[in-house]
């Protein structure tokens, strides 16, 4: 069955929608267009006013300087490794906990869910100090484990999966499987997970980018430059007084490339939705 529903609505309406979405998409991208454009500007042109969207005298100096003077690719590699592991951990923990909390009603589960959600409310920076002291006591500073430890679970991830599981996995389906003698793990892995493919893909994207943009924690836990992640690496271009805007933009633009590629690849995973997941009437 085609993902496109043949509604019989006129093509005109679709064209109007396309124009509107196109305009909004471009509006969303405008600040980023400036960012990419800044990456190719000379220091003089960066100061020029009004700012130009297309550089008058495009230069590769910023890019070259960034690649020559900083371990940019090393940072990107570190970040990909860190983000991949964090994503795997978060998707696993969220899938399990989200499913259980959505589909099993046991006394205390409401409290557990409420507590998990409440932990998301406190900004990470606030409880970073005790967590840091814990990681330090465990001797995990400057290790991947130390970095990862704050990113093994995601309150919003459990919440997200729970919310989807409530509607996307019909209770009758689980019940029928039990009647057929299926074990609970089997039901979780073979019935629930396939139905949650879209949400899990979306969660994967969110978890990946949460790690990708992590800053406060890697800064203090992985304090060594070559062990750093991209977001902290980018911060090295700033000082209290001046910003190396050209280089900062060049580095940020390079870092955007894997982000966009990753999103495009992952997107294919979760756009199919229920129609493609094998569940039909």
């Amino acid at each position: 069955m085609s993902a496109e529903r043949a509604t019989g609505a006129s093509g005109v309406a679709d064209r109007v929608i396309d124009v509107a979405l196109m305009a909004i998409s471009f509006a969303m991208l405008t600040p980023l267009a400036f960012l990419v454009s800044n990456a190719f500007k000379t220091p003089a042109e960066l100061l020029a006013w009004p700012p130009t969207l297309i550089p008058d005298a495009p230069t590769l100096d910023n890019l070259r300087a960034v690649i020559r003077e900083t371990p940019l690719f090393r940072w990107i590699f570190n970040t990909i490794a860190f983000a991949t592991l964090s994503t795997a951990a978060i998707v696993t923990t969220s899938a399990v906990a989200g499913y259980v909390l959505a589909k099993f009603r046991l006394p205390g589960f409401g409290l557990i869910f409420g507590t998990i959600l409440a932990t998301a409310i406190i900004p990470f920076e606030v409880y970073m100090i005790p967590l840091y002291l814990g990681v330090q006591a465990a001797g995990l500073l400057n290790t991947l484990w130390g970095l990862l430890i704050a990113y093994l679970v995601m309150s919003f991830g459990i919440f997200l999966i729970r919310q989807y599981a409530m509607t996307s996995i019909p209770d009758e389906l689980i019940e029928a499987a039990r009647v057929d003698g299926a074990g609970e793990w089997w039901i979780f892995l073979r019935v629930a997970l396939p139905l949650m493919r879209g949400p899990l893909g979306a969660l994967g994207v969110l978890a990946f980018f949460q790690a990708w943009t992590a800053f406060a924690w890697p800064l203090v836990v992985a304090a060594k430059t070559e062990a750093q992640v991209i977001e902290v690496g980018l911060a090295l271009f700033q000082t209290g007084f001046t910003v190396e805007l050209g280089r900062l933009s060049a580095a940020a633009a390079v870092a955007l490339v894997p982000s966009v590629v990753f999103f495009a690849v992952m997107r294919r995973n979760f756009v199919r939705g229920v129609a493609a997941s094998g569940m039909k009437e």
Partner: protein
Amino acid sequence: MSARDAFAPPPGPSATRRRALCAALAATLMAAPLPALAQQKLTLWSGWTELKPFYERVAAQFKKKHPDVDISVEVIALREHEKRIALAMPSGAAADIIEMQVEYGRYAEAGLLPPANAAATAFVSDPKHFDKFVQDAVSVSGKVYGVPLFRGQTVLFYNTDMFAKAGLSGPPKTMEDYTTYAEKLTQRDSAGKPTVSGWSLRLSGGGMGIAEKFWINMHQYGGAVVREKNGKWFADYANEAGRKTLKQYLDNVIVKKTVSPEMKADAEAFSLGQTAMFIRESWVIGDIAKKAPGLPYATAPLPKGSIVIPVGLYVPTKDAKKAALAWDYTLMANEPENLVWLLDNVGWLPNRKDVDYSGVIKAKPAFEAFVNYPKDHSFFTLPFITPVSEVLTRLAARLEKGYLDPALAGNDAAIDAFLKAAADETNTILKREGFYGAP
């Protein structure tokens, strides 16, 4: 609806394989910790990105002397630098060499920062090398804890073309001059709105900077945000000096409109030719050379004196062998040849005085005002008491509103009440932290 259909799609073997692959990958990565500190590797933390080339230059020389030792220079924005120090110092996870301003005092007093070794202490204590002011700025109760490196000190930067066009032959001499000059220098559009500010004042921004600049101006009138007496501190600005300073801001912003908060400000405005003068540290010289090399400008000392923020290098490492190497590095950074390079290439002022900087000053006369100031020039620094940043941040929040308050302009009584309320708050903070002493 048949539930059985839902079980139909068998799990793809590829999915299982992929999962196994991921697990293997994860195991491999986990097993390999991030490169651990090698035996002979020293780490240096700094909060000024522009100093990175300097530290690396010294590191290269250090490597020649100690071929088996690597120095890793890790620089990040000052705000983040402060954060990592605050977290790492108590847990003993700080770098081997760190750069600090006045906050070294709190770590030294808490026993988290060991004093300098004999060689460094001897070097710093030698009156040939440093003024007493500088020595005190790395010491606690007479004991040396670090090696001074450079300092932030302020002068007036002024655009000589704009001065000439306004018929002004030299820099303003008194604080009263600053306002009259600013009036003459302001360029306006047909509606009378300023397009080029006569004197760029710090009117907004993030946090304590506003109060720090206020203090610099107030110092010219003899006031201080906090003043020491017998080891205790009190607010010293609800007085004539404070009133004159605030009044000058209000005069310029509200009465004479020589500057407005939405105009570009500070070094950026100066580079762009959007302000005629402003007060700032020596790094601006290097910045202008990079961004607006053709800008016609000169510098002049402030009427009475300047803030001095000394920055030094400290060695928190407990490992004796590493510490000895680290102190050696801090002394190497203070070699005359390196300090001349620092002044010439970065623009921050080195503290060591028995070094011949004349070559650089001759080539870049803008440095003149930083080193050749009048005999009676007076300096002040931010006290190294814990509540100082809170005092300045809260004062800044009040000033930011006050500068734009028309009710204060021209109303001495209102200004006095404003300052009184702010000073009371300052004293309350000092009392709470146990630093208050009545004047």
